[in-house]
């Protein structure tokens, strides 16, 4: 449309009526008025144009101020320590964001794995399998309207849904409150009793637990135990009144008769239970709900922009609908779908509210997730936490963390643009 205004400018600059007559006779009064009027209209138009330019410039200025102020505030804290350290209450200067970077990646991985197939599948269904009968068409329209509405639901409401649906699972598997190992544990966990040995310094041995319902054990006869390396051995007992063993190695394999051991759960990376609790799995799935409408709408738009003639040619060659989708529409729409997906992932990485609701506001974590049910910190939540503090150091840390987050987003967006360009060339 950009060519219209210049052409229009010429049109509207038709000479004022007065000037046609030359200066021989003074122009009649109404023509004079008309000329004033058109001058005024042109002035308005000019002013409006200037207003447009100024207001449009405003957004550039705002972006520049935002980036400049955050860079100035955060540059002092932009150190290697920031990338490798973890949050510290006592020494703010040495705080870092490594766990939150890992956490963000973990959550976004889960989010991508669940939202992208679902979203692209839905888009294919809505665009390529248009129903013919009337009730199905109405259902189709309803789904379409519903998706548009889902896109407008505030992300914090999705957070609350994730809290009920993934964290507590509507309390179907019992209420999870403080006890870490509640719920229905499916795999990746082994239960032991932990008993103090004679070695002192809190040294313990583990005794495999047979009955989950029994929270403690009293050692009265020798049992099979496991040491730190996982080797099994028979536990020996020491009765009060008899001489204590003196050999340190033996001490480590001996417990007092009648000692009481508490329950201890050892989890490996595949630990999985229902409900998910405050885990990164729950957070990732919640984020998937948030970006699902975005993925669907972007994929639909790019499927819609595939020219119908391509599909018709495919049908004309005798391909089925499904073959057409797989061989024609989907490859043609892929660059657009990928770009939309990466932009949606960018949204997911920057989203704080749902993660905050699902995982809680704690940031004291010094590693990435240890198992699938582990809590994590994400970059936006960490920034929110730091930015909400009074100390100047945390304020600067927040700005530095924002720079890191923005760089990550920039990298993702560049990847999107690069992919789009490359696929265009190949296509």
């Amino acid at each position, binding site marked *: 449309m950009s060519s219209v205004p210049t052409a229009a400018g010429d049109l509207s600059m038709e000479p004022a009526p007065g000037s046609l007559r030359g200066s021989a006779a003074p122009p009649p009064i109404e023509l004079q008025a008309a000329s004033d009027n058109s001058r005024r209209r042109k002035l*308005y138009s000019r002013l409006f144009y200037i207003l447009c330019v100024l207001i449009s410039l405003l957004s550039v200025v705002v972006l520049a101020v935002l980036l400049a102020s955050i860079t100035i505030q955060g540059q002092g804290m932009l150190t290697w320590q920031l990338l490798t350290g973890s949050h510290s209450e006592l020494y703010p200067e040495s705080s870092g964001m490594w766990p939150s970077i890992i956490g963000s990646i973990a959550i976004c991985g889960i989010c991508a794995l669940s939202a992208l197939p679902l979203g692209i599948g839905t888009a294919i269904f809505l665009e390529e399998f248009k129903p013919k009968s009337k009730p199905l068409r109405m259902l189709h329209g309803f789904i379409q309207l519903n998706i548009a509405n889902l896109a407008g639901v505030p992300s914090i409401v999705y957070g609350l849904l994730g809290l009920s649906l993934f964290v507590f699972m509507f309390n179907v598997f019992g209420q999870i409150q403080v006890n870490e190992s509640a719920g229905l544990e499916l795999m990746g966990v082994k239960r032991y009793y932990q008993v103090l040995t004679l070695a002192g310094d809190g040294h313990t041995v583990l005794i495999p637990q047979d009955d989950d319902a029994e929270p403690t054990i009293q050692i009265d006869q020798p049992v099979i135990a496991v040491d730190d390396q996982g080797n099994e051995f028979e536990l020996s007992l020491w009765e009060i009144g008899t001489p204590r063993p003196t050999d340190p190695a033996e001490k480590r394999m001996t417990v007092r008769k009648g000692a009481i051991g508490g329950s201890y759960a050892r989890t490996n990376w595949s630990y999985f239970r229902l409900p998910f609790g405050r885990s990164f799995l729950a957070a990732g799935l919640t984020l998937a709900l948030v970006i699902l409408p975005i993925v669907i709408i972007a994929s639909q738009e790019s499927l819609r922009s595939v020219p119908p003639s391509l599909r018709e040619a495919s049908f004309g060659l005798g391909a089925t609908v499904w073959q057409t989708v797989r061989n024609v529409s989907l490859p043609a729409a892929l660059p657009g779908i990928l770009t939309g997906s990466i932009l949606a992932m960018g949204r997911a990485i920057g989203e*704080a509210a749902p993660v905050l609701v699902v995982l809680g506001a704690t940031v004291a974590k010094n590693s990435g997730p240890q198992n699938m049910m582990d809590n994590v910190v994400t970059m936006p939540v960490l920034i929110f936490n730091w930015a909400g503090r009074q100390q100047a150091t945390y304020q600067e840390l927040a700005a530095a963390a924002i720079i890191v987050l923005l760089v990550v987003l920039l990298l993702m967006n560049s990847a999107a643009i690069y992919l789009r360009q490359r696929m265009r060339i190949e296509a």
Partner: protein
Amino acid sequence: MVAVLAVCALMTIGITIGIVVMLIGQSWNFFQSEHVSVGDFLTGTHWTALQSRELDNAEFGIWPLLSGTFRVTIIAMVIALPCGLVTAVYLSEFSSSRVRSILKPTLEVIAGIPTVVLGYFAILVISPGLQLFTGGAFDTFNATSAGIAVGILCLPMVCSLSEDALHAVPRALREGAYGLGCTPFETSMKVVVPAALSGIISAFLLAFSRAIGETMVVALAAGTRATFTFDPREQSQTMTGFIVEMIKSESEYGTVQYFSLYAVAITLFVITFAMTLLGQMIRRRYQESYD
């Protein structure tokens, strides 16, 4: 295979049902308590769910939170709607392709900035700036700075949706207007914008609903006191801000105070859902078709 895809599509309806069931189910726990009534909730002007540990002292009247939300939202709209529309008009009617190639990416970058970053910007730059210009008339946390930040956030959305609507207006209308001797101002404001009005109004409504649901900016910059005033210089806890504070406070699950957050959430959901639905309906129903 088609069945799998159909299940994917039906899942989206499942999400909506899930949201509604969850909100109604959880806020039922709140309204069931004899300490609260729906009437008091909808008309009360005091909200002290976070401040009072004792249930007897807690007052649950939604209006302070609503007024906080609307103060922030109105300030945001005063900024985002005119600026967004004018930028859209400029982009679609006047700009050269060179200006466009700068302006469009700028707006996309602003749209991609995480909201928590804008919240930080509000407390880092906007709020001190306001205090500087007015000689300290504003609170440290106030509705205006949060509103301005939310306005910046909504601007790209208003702009891109309005621009789409303006683009859909056929060239013939513009040429007709210019042929009748209209100036560019008259053409765009009296012909093109009215022709795209349904799309523009729907863009406004969608931006409005986005601003109401915005969370991180208000949680950082709008303060934590729920006040029932129209003074934009004061602290103003919004509905979303309250939900975040409640979650942050790690209040015990099961108390009436805790469940009050679901009552707030259902109010928020109803308002935004109505806005979005209205926006979608206007866009579909009144879409001018020029084919």
